[in-house]
Structures are given as structure tokens and as C-alpha cells.
């Protein structure tokens, strides 16, 4: 107990943060904002074969106020963009966003007047999962990367 880490916010705070991060990353309540093709792969990930529940993210909440992670699954058109923004704004901190599929990452091959060229033009994104649609394995990989990010985040000192 005599040893105090030389840098950072102090021993107890950093320990506590690690515990909180560990707890948070395995109890993700996700909000699936499913709009298009990627929804099929989202269903595959959620169902028994790939079983997202193994990663502690099995429980979808369809109220943004109860959700931690916003899964944006599928193309976002300009008509849909305000809805997405509003759902994001309604979520409580701490919150994360996963861009599921290339349409949400960059607009994909829908380079036209109707499609938002990447949702990061509207809301901040934490993890990008490219693919059209991404395979379930890629989704799980993205989820694990998100969990690593959540686990390492400084929860207490967040603004």
C-alpha cells in the first residue's frame, strides 16, 4: 500500500477506474439502430449461432435512455439522419457508437444524393466495422475492440 503510482490520478482512483471499466465492458446494453441489409447479419450475430451474449452484449434495449452502445446498422439516408442524431442525443453518458457496415463508415458504394457519407459526419463514432455487410466474425471482433476501449477508458475523469 505504500507504493503509489508515479503518474496518473493516484492509486485508488486508477484501481477503481479499472474495476469500473471491467464491469462496464461486459455489461453492454446496446441500442440496435437497424435500417438496412446489415440488419440480417446483426440478427445472425444476435441469434444462437454466433451468440453475441457470450460477450455480455446480448440485451438490446430499444429505449436510447437505457442503452450504452448505439449500433448503427445499415445505410443512413439524409432523411434518416436527424432521427439518428436525436437518438444519439437521447442516450445517457457514458455512451459509445459502433458504425456497423461500410455504409455507416463511409457511405459505401452509395455515393449519391440520398446517402449520408459516413455517420461520423453526424455523430462521433468509436468503432468502425467495415464490410458490406460485415461477417458475424468481424462484428464480434469489432465488439471486442470496443470492449477493450471501454475497459481502458478513464471513467471518473470524463467530462
Amino acid at each position, binding site marked *: 500500500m505504500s507504493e503509489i503510482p508515479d503518474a496518473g490520478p493516484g492509486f485508488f482512483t486508477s484501481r477503481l477506474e479499472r474495476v469500473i471499466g471491467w464491469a462496464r465492458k461486459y455489461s453492454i446494453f446496446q441500442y440496435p439502430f437497424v435500417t438496412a441489409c446489415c*440488419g440480417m447479419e446483426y440478427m445472425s450475430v444476435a441469434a444462437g449461432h454466433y451468440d453475441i451474449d457470450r460477450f455480455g452484449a446480448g440485451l438490446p434495449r430499444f429505449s436510447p435512455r437505457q442503452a450504452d452502445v448505439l449500433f448503427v446498422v445499415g445505410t443512413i439516408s439524409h432523411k*434518416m439522419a436527424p432521427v439518428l442524431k436525436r437518438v444519439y442525443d437521447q442516450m445517457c453518458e457514458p455512451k459509445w457508437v459502433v458504425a456497423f457496415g461500410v455504409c455507416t463508415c463511409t457511405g459505401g458504394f452509395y455515393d449519391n444524393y440520398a446517402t449520408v457519407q459516413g455517420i461520423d459526419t453526424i455523430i462521433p463514432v468509436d468503432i468502425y466495422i467495415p464490410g458490406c455487410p460485415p461477417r458475424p466474425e468481424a462484428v464480434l471482433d469489432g465488439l471486442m475492440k470496443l470492449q477493450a476501449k471501454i475497459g481502458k477508458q478513464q471513467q471518473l475523469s470524463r467530462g
Partner: protein
Amino acid sequence: MEETTTAAHETKSMLLNMGPSHPAMHGVIRLITELEGEKILKVEAEIGYLHRAFEKSAENSSWTQVMPYTDRLNYVSPLINNFGYCGAVEKLLEIEIPERCKYIRVMMSEVSRITDHLTCIAACTMELGAMTAFLYLMKAREYLYEVIEQVTGARLTISYGRIGGVKADLPEGFDKNLLEALRLTERELSEVDRLLTKNRIWVDRTRDVGVLTRENAVTFGITGPLARAAGINYDVRKAFPYLVYERMAFEVPLGERGDNYDRYLVRMEEMRQSIRILRQAVRDLPGGPIAVDAGGKVVQSFDLVDEAKLGRTAGLVDVATTVEPTLEGTQKRYRSRFASSDRSVALPSKEDTYGNIEGLMNHFKLIMDYHGIRPPAGEAYFAVEGANGELGFYVVSDGKDRPYRVRVRPPCFFNMAGLHTMLEGYLLADVIATFGSINMIAGELDR
């Protein structure tokens, strides 16, 4: 929900907005409902939240490049879209595709139809709280996705169709894998059948709910399982047989009442009929296997390459080969089984492309921008039986390498036009059951 003024006891109706971000609205449709208590007086559907400019994009792509866009119209059964578009362009070009290719298209269409119906019933049951059935049906879909992946290389957005054929021949062991997947799917289907068909809760939520009358089905141009559940005997596969459907023995299931329960039963039966078609197609599939004679003979190296590409590597270890420097002939006999021999449409085999100047020129003429496939000026409409009804493609050509216009007749669009007749007069909670049984796919609805 009801506002009552005490003086005159007059009731006011209330507007309630559902969607576009609503768990049961499949993401992208907005229903504005007028309620009196829990009863729905009026429904208005607002669409267009997934408009991705399919038709405009198609005008800016070459005829072949439209294929990936068609995948994403009805993304639950993309293979049917592929073949619908191919059929329209082939009609315009007046070319005939090889027999084996027709069978491949029929088989992949039916696999796709099963995945579509599985997804529809799964989503509907999940929204009504039957999570178990959802998981069983998703399991069955996964078996079929594996077959699709073996054939096309992708699970969902497959781009397997080509004008004048398909991308590649069936892989080794396809028939065995398909039949096994069908057996497993049938098992899950009977499981779900036992779980749902006589389930009190399921029947209560769906029986006599969301009725679509025959008159309304005809008025709004509704086709597919919805119309058949209402008793209209219309299936493009029977009415205007395409590919080799006229050789297949199958029945078109019809409902009587046109309610949600009938739609469920029709979809369940259609899946069984699709399995029946698939078994016949596997049995009748022409072409047969081409096997390398590995009995100690000297064989051409390209034969070995072909065999290896199809996964037939067993027994090739001890084979002596000769090397043909021009690679002449490789894959040719395979290509003729699944792609048209019309050189103005179908790509030459890779060995022709690399092996001789004619093949190389042919390849470039088809691939390069502003060359490509050039159908004669004119127009064609071709319809296939999509999973949700008549899926038609209307293509117009002005003789250039790009479509002048590609118009889709998406079955969902017509279903949505008649949506209010299935919702009005019922309770608010019935919206979920009815909407689930309609199987709205935004990709083809909004295009």
C-alpha cells in the same frame, strides 16, 4: 390515451407516431396512427427513409455493374433480385442461357425464398415475444447461408447473377451439402410448427387480425404470400413460368381469411414447397460431374487446375501431367455449363483471356468502360416471383453500354399501399403482429 371532456362525454382521437426508429418498424418506416382509445381509426405510412437512389445509380453503371445494387433491394433474398434483373436484360438481348444455369438459378432462388420466409416469421415471432421460435428459425437460416456461401462466396450480398449466366459453377459436394442443409432446415421447421401453429398465444395474436380482403389485395396490386393468404391464386412461377419452373412439381398454398395466421401458414407451406422444388432440381440437375481420369493416365494441366478449383484434390497426387503453354482450353467446358456462349455478353474463360488475342479482346470489350454489354435499343419487362410477391424489372436501353432506365416493381411497395386496410379497425397492439407478418423490406420499398 383518451381525452374525455366531462361535459359532453365526447371523445377526441389522438395521434400517435410509430417509427421510424421503432423496434417493430424494421428500422425505416413511420406510421402515423390516429387512435380512439386503443383502436386505430386511421393509419398513414410514411416511406422513403432508406431511399438509396437505386434507379439513378443504375443509370450511371454499366449493365453488369447494376448487379450489386440489385442485391441490396430485397436483402433478405438477394439471389432472386439478381436473377430477376438478369432475366430482364436477357429478354432485351434475346439470349438463351444454358440449361444447367437455369437449374442453378431455380435452386438458388428457392434457397433464397426459404431464408426470406424464415426471417419474416422469425422477426414476427420475436416481436410478439416468442424468442425461442426466433432462435430456431435463425439456426435454420444459418444452415442455408452456409450453402449460399459455398456457392457464391458470400453470405448475404452475393452478386452471383451475371447477364447470360451465373458467376461460377456449383462447388464440389453441393448436392450433398444442400440436401443436408434442407434436412436440418426441415427439422427446425417442424420444431417451430409444433411451437407455434397451435400455440394459444400465437393464434390469439394472429387469427382474424390484420385481415386483407381479396378485393383490397386486387385493388392495391398486392401479390405474393399476402395475396395468396387472401385466397388469390397468383404465383408468377405458375402464371408465367420462367427458367425451369414449369418442369417442377409444386403447389401454391392458398389461405382463406387473409389474416396474419393465414400468412404465417402460407409462408410455412411455401418453404416446404421450396424444399420440394430444390430436391427435384438437385435430382434433375443437368451437366453432371466432370471428373479427371486419375487412373494413371497423363492429363492436361488445365484439367488439374479446374479440378483443384472445384475442390477435387483427392487422388490427384500421383497423376502425371503435361503443360500446355497457351493454357488453351482450360475451364472452357465448365464455363459453357453455366454461362451463355454469346460472346457479346458472357466473359471468355480466363485461359482464353490470357491465352489468345481473341479472348483478350473479347474480355476487354466487355470489361472496359464505354464498351461493355450493349443491348439493342428497346425495353423489356421481366417478373420473377420474389419472396414478397411479383418482383419485376423494367429495363430500357438506348443501345449504349449503360441502362437508360432501370425500374423495379418491388412487391413491398404495393403491400405498403394497402397497409392501412390491414391495420384500421384493429387495436394498437395488433400493429406489431400485422406489420411483422407483412415482411416489409425497406431496401426494395424505398429503393
